């Protein structure tokens, strides 16, 4: 296996870890929204943290490293094509956002839900709101649409900024819809 193939293989494995981790986080959070059981609510937030630490972070580091060396190996240049700028720009944004705002938010969710669970509290809307704030929901629901735009940039390779910006706009709209409807749908499904 040559150097380029090895990098490409690593890039796909990294993407799989990252994508799988984000999807697993999505599912565990969905379970958290859906349940009426306090222990299950606290456990879901713990699983969110586990998926971040064991899948998302290793995946992001692998994707970032192999992506950097792939661009260098192919001699593409980091600023010459809109799709490459879209890929690393969004990745960097997600990486920084994921390790700052998102990390603080899901740690807070885990702490508060576990504290409530240890006290033997019944799961109320106040506890839900306290554990998962609006900013928590926005950063959580932003992950999958943005990752989809990164995949779009990497596979379709749009050669104009208009296409990349349109994809980002669509992703932001999808995020807004998810923030509004996903928790409600999950609650309805759980009842």
């Amino acid at each position, binding site marked *: *296996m040559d150097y*380029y*193939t090895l990098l*490409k*293989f690593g890039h*796909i*494995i990294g*993407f*799989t*870890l990252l*994508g*799988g*981790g984000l*999807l*697993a986080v999505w*599912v*565990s959070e*969905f*379970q958290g929204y859906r349940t009426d059981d306090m*222990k*299950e609510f606290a*456990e*879901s937030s713990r*699983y969110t943290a*586990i*998926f971040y630490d*064991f*899948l998302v972070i290793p995946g992001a580091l692998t994707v970032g490293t192999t992506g950097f060396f792939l661009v260098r*190996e*192919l001699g593409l240049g980091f600023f010459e094509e809109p799709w490459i700028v879209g890929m690393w720009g969004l990745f960097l944004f997600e990486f920084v956002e994921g390790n700052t705002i998102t990390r603080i938010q899901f740690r807070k969710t885990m702490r508060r839900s576990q504290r409530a669970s240890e006290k033997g509290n019944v799961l109320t809307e106040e506890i839900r709101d306290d554990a998962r704030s609006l900013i928590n929901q926005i950063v959580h629901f932003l992950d999958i649409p943005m990752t*989809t735009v990164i*995949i*779009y940039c*990497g*596979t*379709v*390779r749009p050669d104009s900024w208009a296409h990349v910006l349109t994809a980002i706009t669509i992703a932001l709209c999808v995020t807004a819809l998810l923030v509004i409807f996903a928790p409600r749908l999950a609650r309805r499904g759980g009842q």
Partner: protein
Amino acid sequence: MLKFIKALHVIGVGLFFGSILGHAVAGLAPGIHDSPHTRLVARQIIDVATYYLTLPGLALLLLTGVALVVKRERPIRNLAPHLFIAVLILVNAIFILYPTGQDVLGVTRDLAAGAQSDGVLQALEGREAMFGAINILLCLLAILVGVIKPGSEKEQS
């Protein structure tokens, strides 16, 4: 058109293989054996992920895989081994892993409801771990075969 099918194929890889990795992490999470309730939450997450991610991902992979073969003008290198591995993954997932996962969920629910453990769960989890590991290896192999294109230029890749 071909690029969009390829993009969907990559999304299928993320959904299917990514969710399998998620199952593995959920099944090996710290403290999972501490209480039947903790184990039940993990199994519920795995069950939801199977319905909404793994199985749709597998369907997407198969459909886009067929579309890629049909739409491409040039023959795809390494297609035969890639297809062979895909069939093995499909058979393992549909006929072994999916039914075993359902059985594990059922037994875990019983345990969380207060039933006594009689070793059935350990046997089922052992089978799931073995065939799950085989599927992960097969997925890695399928990706490797898909990535290695002998004789092709970097630019074509």
